């Protein structure tokens, strides 16, 4: 099949960059131009001086540490959770997290240089880190992950001043570039692990409804930051298996939709879905 237009092959990627950079711009418009679209930072913020928003993992740490049960923080976290239950937990990683710009750059450079995937830890290492963060918050009576979290160090740094934060960001970049492909986001980041758990039930999901058109070119596997989520939907053992990418690890980044010239993938709901070809039997009802 002929390659589609370059813009079409990068449609979701471009939208994602607009979202990530736009969000940063919204946080910077206040301090720079006095236009207060969003006050605060990704840990907790106020949208248009009215809607409170709070990172649920930061609040969870505050709660196990013995604080944070305040109305503004609780309602802010509930609102954020609701958004990610609807739009996919790890949409945070693909559409909001500013560190994704850094780790995507490292992953892109690895692909350009033709590097192998490098050292690959178990994917559930990040769940261990998440557990450790919660236990440590409880044990120390402090929000511990925010001492190290490179996501908030980067975003806070951009809005409030970076200091030595660059060292941490550079370390994550070099780790992803030289040691392990998608090493940080894919294996270690407890924030991604947390949103992955949220995403286990989220509504918006990628599906491989037109999987019968797949030519086994492997483009989607090469570009996907969590390639293990594709196979169960694209190449299931049973032909009647659901074509929806059900794993919470999927970022809803849409890169598979972008790169697939056959148009196998698309966004859809977790529930409502029919296979797009008559040859495959319908999913069990």
């Amino acid at each position: 099949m002929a390659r589609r237009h370059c813009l079409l092959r990068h449609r979701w990627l471009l939208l994602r960059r607009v979202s990530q950079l736009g969000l940063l711009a919204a946080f910077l418009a206040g301090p720079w131009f006095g236009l207060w679209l969003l006050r605060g930072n990704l840990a907790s913020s106020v949208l248009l001086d009215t809607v409170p928003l709070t990172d649920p993992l930061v609040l969870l740490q505050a709660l196990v540490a013995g604080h944070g049960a305040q109305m503004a923080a609780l309602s802010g976290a509930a609102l954020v959770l609701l958004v990610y239950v609807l739009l996919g937990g790890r949409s945070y990683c693909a559409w909001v997290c500013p560190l994704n710009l850094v780790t995507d750059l490292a992953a892109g450079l690895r692909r350009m240089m033709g590097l192998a995937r490098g050292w690959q830890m178990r994917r559930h290492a990040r769940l261990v880190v998440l557990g450790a963060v919660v236990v440590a918050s409880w044990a120390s009576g402090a929000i511990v992950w925010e001492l190290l979290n490179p996501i908030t160090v980067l975003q806070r740094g951009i809005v409030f001043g970076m200091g030595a934060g660059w060292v941490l960001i550079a370390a994550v970049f070099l780790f992803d570039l030289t040691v392990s492909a998608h090493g940080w986001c894919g294996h270690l980041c407890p924030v991604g692990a947390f949103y992955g758990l949220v995403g286990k039930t989220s509504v918006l999901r990628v599906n491989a409804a037109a999987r019968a058109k797949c030519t086994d070119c492997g483009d989607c596997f090469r570009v996907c930051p969590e390639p293990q989520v594709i196979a169960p939907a694209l190449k299931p053992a049973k032909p009647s298996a659901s074509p929806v990418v059900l794993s919470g690890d999927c970022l809803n980044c849409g890169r598979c939709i972008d790169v697939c010239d056959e148009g196998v993938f698309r966004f859809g709901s977790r529930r409502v879905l029919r296979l797009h070809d008559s040859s495959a039997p319908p999913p069990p009802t």
Partner: protein
Amino acid sequence: MPSSMPASRRKFIGDCLGVLGAGGVIGLLLAANARVAEALPAWALRPPGALTEDDFGAACLRCGLCVQACPYDILHLARLSDGVTPGTPYFVARQRACEMCVDIPCAVACPTDALTAPAPGIAAARMGLARMTGPDTCYSINGTAQCGACYLACPVKDAAITMERRSAGGRVYFEPTVNAANCTGCGKCEEACVTEEASIKVLPLALARQDRRGPLPRRGA
């Protein structure tokens, strides 16, 4: 007996132990880190209405809403290398002291109870406590000049700092004297002090109370 155990179960138990071990080690490291990072240095003060330092680390979400709410841009959000717990708000009295806004916008902006506006008003805030840390360099005490800059700068006029008449060796002088019951710890005295290194400093409460050079009256005493 381990030898009779199926390989899959052995692997499962091994995995579990590995996960628990790794989690424990990471957890301990993070907890130790959190403890170390909690100590507030002597030159840094929290915004008005802050919880004690132990509780502050649990309640402060590191969001910077208080920093952005400060109309005088006095508050900083600690960077990784600042020596204050990263992401938490502080100000340096010597650079710029708290203006003691009547409506306390920083505390109002806080989404948790890390900062709570004191019910009686800003005069009840206890951001720190002023101490005469350099009686030998203080111009008023050592007789260089009749200074009183700290006394004049104090917003809790004639209550938090008074100039006490003293005489020693036939010399009469006025000693700036902090009355702990009324000092809000805003830092105006330290900011105003004319000596090269401030002779009067506002210390975080925990540090000021540890000070051995004299018993400090408790709040409200």
